[in-house]
Structures are given as C-alpha cells and as structure tokens.
C-alpha cells in the first residue's frame, strides 16, 4: 500500500482512471470542478482511453451519459448542487432506462440564497429517483466507493445508476493520505463491462426511451423497486470481495463505539469523522455515547440501521438537509421504518461549520429532548 496525499476530488479521478470508462461527459461546477479538470488531463494524456465530451450544461452531461450507456459502454460524470438539480429530469430517466451510470456528486447547498458551500440537500432531493447513493466519510472511501459502485450498478441483477456523494470543500478540497490501488487488483475486482441488455448493433436494432401506456408503466417501475431492494445482496458480496482484495471493509452502516451505547448519533458523510473525536472524548469521561454512520442511503438499509441503534435508549439523527415542515430526511426515514426514540437535528446548511460544541449540544439535547426536530448552530441574533 502506497499512501499519497490528495484531495477527495483527485481520489475520485484516480478511481475513474482505474475503472476506465469509455465516455466521460462532464460539465464543471464548484466544488466538483477539479474532478472534471483531472479527468480532462487523464484523457488528454492518454491515461484514460475515453471520449471526453465537453457538453454545454449538466442536462446535456447526464443526457450524453444516458445515450452512451444505452450503447453498452461504461460511463462516468460528476456534478454538484445546481448542476444536479438541472439534471433532475434525466436522473429519473437514467434509473428508469436501467443505465448503470456512476456519478460523483460534490455535495453543495441548493439556491436560494445562492451558496457554493456544503450541505447534502442536492443529492437528498434526488432520493426517489431509483439511483443508489453512497455518502463517503473521507478521500479513501470516495475512491473505493467509485469502484464498488461500478461493480454493483453493472451487476445484471441490479442495472441501476449510482451516485457517490462527497461533502463539498470538506472532502472535495481537503488533502489527506489516500491509497490508490493497483490496476491489476482493480481489474480482478471490476471486470470489463459487457452488458446483455444494452448494445449498438445495426443487425439487432432496438428503441430505448419508449412510451408506455398504463398497461406497462407500473411493471417497469416495480422492476426498479425489486432491483434496488435486491441490490443489497449484491452490495454485500461486492463489499466482502473488495475487503479480500484491498483490505478495506465497508458495510451499509459503520458502527463506532455504539454496541453498548446509551445515546447514539446517526449521521452521513464527513461529519462522522468529527463526531468520532467527540465520542472518544466523552467515552474517556465515562459517557456511553456512540455513532452509527449510514454509508449506503439508497437502497435504504432499514435492518442494518435498526440492528445498530435498537439497543440505545435515545438516538440523535443529524441531517445536512431539510424537508420543510417535516424536518431532516434521514431522521424521518428512521422514524418511519423503526420503533426507536429518535430526535432530529438540522446542521451545517450552506457550509455552516459544525464544531465539537455543536455535537455535544446535540448529545445533550438527545438526552433531554424537548422537541422532535430542531436546528443547531443558528446565529441567535439573526432569527
């Protein structure tokens, strides 16, 4: 293992180089931009043998991905925030057409007010599309998740696109040590993509993107539900094979000092690193606190989350998103699927820094709850 110091954006580009897609349509947007720059360089230098398409918008980027994927080749794109929102129409089409596209989303707040900084509203707002979603905690996981996503998305039992979500700036622009795996190992884990369902062959013509009347639509959508639910088995197998080859074990959720915890925080993405430091600090003082990090958000790992949190007396769920008038999305999904005493905390919107004192405040408010859902870190004088 050779560690190199790099940003999560560079780690993602390195992963894409290893996966070697054939078509890369990408449109730059802060804080994703350096991904598109690294990929442009790799293609120009001949390190990736791919068609790099300089599209005129994100809608075109994902449209080109879908068209290319329809011919049966591996594709990659990346975006953020407003770019993902502009893709929205084709995001649903990509899942419905069962195109195993892999995309990186540099998580950034949605306008208005306009903000370039981090939260997870952009990808959370695409949760109903049929895409798989992974939230990475660090640069290493960003890289690894791209490889795992191709493996799962392209599995014939799944054939659904994947979104690898990395917190804008907090990961995209943070340099830290990352292990870039060797090409031979990656080829063992991720074989060449040879689909049966998609091809470009004049002797076997087909139409994709067809119109369905009410006799067919529901079945097509039901197939997606079955495929996404079935993806769980494929993810489990991919995770264990990944661990065998690369020595890093991923799961749907990560449990951190949560087994005997009385209070458990649940969160996604880079904030979990800071929470772990706070958990260690409070454990040293004898407090039984722990963290459960949700890594795979779609398919939603109900059983795994429930197993991890059911032993706690109270649970605090952190959301870097809000569904107005109902609260954080992860909190509400946990409440909807599990009989647990969970409280929701909206944090870090539009790049508001989440400090250790905020995490401690959340733990205190979980212990002594006054309301189901609340916002943490607001400037009191501005409310």
């Amino acid at each position, binding site marked *: 293992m050779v560690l190199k110091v790099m940003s999560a954006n560079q780690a993602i580009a390195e992963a894409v180089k290893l996966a070697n897609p054939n078509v890369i349509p990408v449109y730059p947007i802060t804080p994703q931009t350096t991904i598109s720059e690294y990929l442009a360089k790799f293609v120009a230098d001949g390190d990736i043998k791919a068609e790099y398409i300089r599209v005129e918008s994100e809608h075109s980027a994902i449209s080109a991905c879908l068209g290319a994927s329809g011919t049966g080749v591996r594709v990659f794109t990346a975006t953020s925030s407003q770019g993902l929102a502009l893709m929205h129409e084709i995001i649903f089409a990509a899942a419905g057409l069962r195109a195993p596209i892999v995309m990186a989303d540099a998580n950034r707040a949605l306008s208005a007010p306009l903000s370039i900084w981090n939260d997870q509203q952009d990808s959370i707002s695409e949760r109903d599309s049929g895409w798989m979603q992974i939230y990475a905690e660090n640069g290493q996981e960003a890289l690894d998740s791209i490889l795992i996503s191709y493996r799962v998305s392209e599995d014939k039992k799944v054939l659904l696109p994947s979104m690898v979500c990395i917190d804008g700036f907090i990961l995209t622009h943070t340099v830290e040590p990352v292990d870039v795996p060797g090409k031979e190992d990656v080829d063992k884990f991720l074989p060449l993509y040879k689909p049966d369902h998609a091809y470009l062959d004049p002797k076997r013509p087909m139409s994709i993107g067809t119109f369905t009347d009410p006799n067919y639509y529901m079945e097509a959508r039901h197939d997606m539900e079955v495929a996404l639910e079935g993806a769980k088995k494929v993810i489990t197998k991919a995770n264990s094979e990944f661990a065998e080859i690369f020595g890093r074990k991923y799961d749907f959720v990560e449990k951190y000092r949560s087994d005997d915890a009385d209070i458990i925080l649940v969160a996604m993405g880079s904030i979990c690193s800071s929470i772990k430091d706070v958990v260690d600090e409070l454990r040293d003082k004898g407090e039984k606190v722990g963290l459960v990090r949700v890594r795979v958000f779609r398919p939603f790992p109900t059983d795994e989350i429930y197993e991890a949190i059911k032993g706690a007396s109270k649970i605090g769920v952190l959301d870097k998103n809000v569904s107005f008038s109902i609260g954080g999305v992860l909190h509400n999904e946990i409440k909807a699927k599990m009989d647990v005493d969970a409280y929701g905390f909206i944090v870090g919107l539009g790049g508001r820094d989440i400090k250790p004192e905020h995490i401690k405040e959340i733990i205190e408010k979980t212990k002594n709850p006054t309301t189901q859902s609340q916002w943490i870190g607001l400037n009191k004088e*501005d409310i």
Partner: protein
Amino acid sequence: MVSVGAAVKEPGSTRKNKTGSWRTFKPILDKEKCIECENCIMFCPEGCINNDYDIDYDYCKGCGICEEECPVKAIKMERE
C-alpha cells in the same frame, strides 16, 4: 435579521467593501507627463479613475492595467 429571501435593499452597498487593501502595487500618475488621452479611465476595470485623473485608492486593486495602457508611461506601479 436576514431580509426576506436574503435580498439586499440598500443600493450601492458594495461600496462598503473597500477593495484597496487587496493591492500589492499602487499606481502613481505623473500629471505633468499625462496627455489626458482617457485610456486609463476607459481601461480601469473598477472605474477608479475620474475625469480629473484622480485615482480612488479606496477601491483600486492594483491590477496595473492603467500602467500597461498609458501611451506616455505617466503611470508607474510602486510597491505599497
């Protein structure tokens, strides 16, 4: 209190953000040499030179375009 939709309702309030401190170099105009051709006035991207050829150092960012465009080299960039 953030206004509704975070709207800014004070016209010209960007003038509160004085950008003069961004400079490393400061343009100095020698009015004896100046032939009043208006090049610097037109090329200054910040509109920092008025019709009397006075430079507004509160907002001049020190980009040096005026020095570049002056046909008689009447403007010299000097370190702050």
